[in-house]
């Protein structure tokens, strides 16, 4: 009896989900083998990670804090993908948003009830401005946004380093490489977890609803799936592209705003912690679905927190990064393999 492998246009959801689960398990097994080879006991480590993360409210609070920027950056990348734009610059927009929000906090006097919303708006505008040039270049000159958004990351990173150690350096002299503590902060609602988390969830739901339940969202979905079809139906592709990319930048900017105003309280170099790049992975795991960003960001936050636990056990940060890379790698393979089935020839 001969069998052959057949490719199907799209995987059934149950198979796709199973492939996802298998990818994560395989990544963990692979990591376990590597850890065992390094002389660690992977089972004991695994237990340690689970206990630390889920066994106490401190662990869960840490995860809750990590998930906030991941939701925003993951959503930012996913939004871009809706119209076929690859925003690799969430990292830079994160910095730009943090920078703009810090500027408002440090230099605009006023009560918190006014300044915090103002910081929110400034963060969004900062992120949007940071993606403006790549957006216009893509829309009017067809310049690949993958390169332009990526390169602007380095500019934003260095810009924030410079202001935090130069013009905006804490005048009290107690901090060497950060701004002063911001006079306003996003209030906490559960341990150390601040209101950025519910706001992030609301933003996800709003964006999800925007794509699912508005005429504009429908046009963007069509344009993202096939620009030719959008042209055929008379939809303004360029206008939608510009709006979606700016929205993507603004959301990434919000990640920076909440990180500086809710978690770190000071603007400093390296504040992004690679959240912008991790957002790409979150979006891939979410398959560019806004709602899917929530579980994907949660998974990523758990992995990051596990990494911190592992580091306390003497495992290097590179190993942790390797595990996240493995998950992405196996997921990509799993997504592809889910589209094949074996049939009797």
């Amino acid at each position, binding site marked *: 009896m001969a069998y052959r492998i057949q490719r199907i*246009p*799209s995987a059934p959801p149950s198979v796709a989900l199973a492939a996802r689960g298998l990818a994560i398990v395989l990544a963990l097994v692979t990591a376990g083998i590597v850890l065992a080879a390094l002389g660690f006991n992977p089972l004991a480590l695994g237990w340690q990670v689970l206990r630390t993360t889920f066994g106490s409210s401190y662990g869960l609070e840490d995860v809750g804090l990590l998930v906030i920027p991941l939701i925003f950056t993951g959503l930012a990348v996913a939004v871009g993908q809706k119209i076929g734009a690859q925003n690799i610059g969430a990292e830079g927009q994160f910095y730009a948003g943090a920078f703009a929000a810090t500027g408002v906090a440090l230099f605009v006097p006023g009560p918190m009830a006014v300044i915090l919303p103002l910081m929110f708006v400034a963060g969004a505008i900062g992120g949007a401005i940071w993606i403006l040039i790549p957006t216009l270049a893509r829309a009017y000159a067809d310049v690949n946004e993958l390169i332009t958004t990526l390169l602007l990351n380095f500019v934003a990173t260095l810009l924030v380093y410079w202001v935090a150690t130069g013009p905006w350096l804490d005048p009290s002299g107690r901090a060497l490489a950060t701004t002063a503590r911001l006079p306003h902060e996003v209030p906490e609602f559960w341990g150390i977890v601040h209101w950025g988390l519910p706001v992030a969830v609301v933003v996800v739901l709003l964006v999800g609803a925007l794509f699912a339940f*508005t*005429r504009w*969202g*429908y*046009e963007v979905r069509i344009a993202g799936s*096939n620009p030719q*079809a959008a042209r*055929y139906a008379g939809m303004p592709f360029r206008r939608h592209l510009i709006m979606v990319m700016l929205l993507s930048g603004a959301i990434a900017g919000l990640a920076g705003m909440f990180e500086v105003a809710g978690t770190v309280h000071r603007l400093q170099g390296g504040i992004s912690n690679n959240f912008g790049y991790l957002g790409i992975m979150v979006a891939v795991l979410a398959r560019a679905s806004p709602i899917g960003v929530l579980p994907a960001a949660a998974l990523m936050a758990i992995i990051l927190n596990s990494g911190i636990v592992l580091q306390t056990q003497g495992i290097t940060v590179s190993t942790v990064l390797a595990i996240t890379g493995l998950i992405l790698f196996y997921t990509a393979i799993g997504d592809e393999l889910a589209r094949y089935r074996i049939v009797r020839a």
Partner: protein
Amino acid sequence: MIAPEPPVPVPTRFVPPPGTAPIVQLRGIAKYFPGVIANEDVDLDVMPGEIHALLGENGAGKSTLMNILTGIYQPDAGEIVIDGYPQSFASPVEAIAAGIGMVHQHFKLVKAFTVAENIHLGWSDTPRAVSAAVLERRTAELAQALNLTVDPAARIGELSTGEQQRVEILRVLTRKARVLILDEPTAVLTPAEAHELFRALKDFVARGNAVIFISHKLDEVLEISDRVTVLRGGRKVATEQTAGCTETSLARLMVGREIVLSDMRGRSAGAAPIGAPVMTLEDIRADDGQGHVVLDGLSLVLRAGEILGIAGVAGNGQKELTQVITGMRQAASGRILVDGADFSRAGAAEFADFGVGHIPEDRLHSGLAPSLSITDNAVLREYDRPPLSGGFGFNGRAATALAKDIAEAASVTVPDFGMPVRNLSGGNQQRLVARREMRIASRVLVAAYPSRGLDVGAINMMMRYLVELRDKGVAVLFISEELEELLNLSDRIAVMFHGRVMGVVDTAEADIDTIGLMMGGKRLTDDAKGRGH
């Protein structure tokens, strides 16, 4: 002006000794794609020393047949016999090893590399460590041995299309090909370049090799080939000695005479009569964005309640015509009048709002968003009006309800409306698009090759759709390569060639031979019947 070319010098003919097996023999080849018969029961034999033309309209199965011969596709039935021995090719690499090479319509060259580098790319004879000079010298020697002039050091990107084609041919011949397959080679050439190509081909077969020459141009088939095989609808119609053929006889073989589908031109009692002009195109010119003129002073009138057929070989401006009259492409000059109003600068949305439906030629790539759901695709034309949208919102439930209506009208069984539309078969996609467009086509429907890829039953249904619209008083522009379809359905037929209308005939008085000649570039003369424009 280019001086008139001297006649092609005929090299000494190669005459195979009696009893020589054909160099290529195809027996009973069949290839089926879902819902489509690409080839069925095709026999073909090619002798050494012969240029064998493969003639047929687009979609007649020429390319599929050659893709089977070169190992790109596997036949579903039949066998390939090379030099008297049955062979099967799992890939083009195996085919070229057996001496069968193909030059495709779209060249497969690396533009940034030199001619010498392209010739040696992916070739087992290429020396392992070589300098550019050695590669260039080898290339020059090969080119000289094969009598093809190329500059080995030139970069592909700097060469003219004709020169690039010569590099492609050289690349195939250096792999010791004895059978050279050319897919519409002159489509990209100037007359002078074509002339040069013909000379090289005659040289090649004079050495005991063979050429299979795919074309739909009658004049060049007569000029270059020794024998001609005509395909229609995936089947072989005839193989003839070219010497005994004329343009008229070939045109008749190519487009077919037998009428299989019934005549649908008769109108029922309640049908709308042919009325006033709905859309008028005046002297439309357009280019393809790369400087090639694709519409060259085209004028047409679409009347209410009338089906205007567009005949012609694909690639003569039909696609651009559909784009211009649906607002997807702006004409460089000329006017489009819609109900007397100037629509020359209007966009696709304005045409759609006026009531222009459009069944595009390439439905999956221009009429559908393949990765989105059937529902999203079904509502592409009505998402912006109630009940789907009152302005800002988008009502998913109303969208699904509309999608169900459209699928039902199109007789497409859909298990799950959330499934990506690309999971539907080509025929079902086509029916869905057709029904979707009919709903908005209150004034004009543009249907480009609506029956392409459908089986006979589905074609009949599609034709009935068009008749239904005609009887409602809609102006229908019906583009097809199937002459019998055009004759069955159209009230008038316009023939396009090189972006122009060669002539418009009333179908009642149409002469199939005249249409065939116009499709080959002959202008309708005054003595021809049914002069319409």
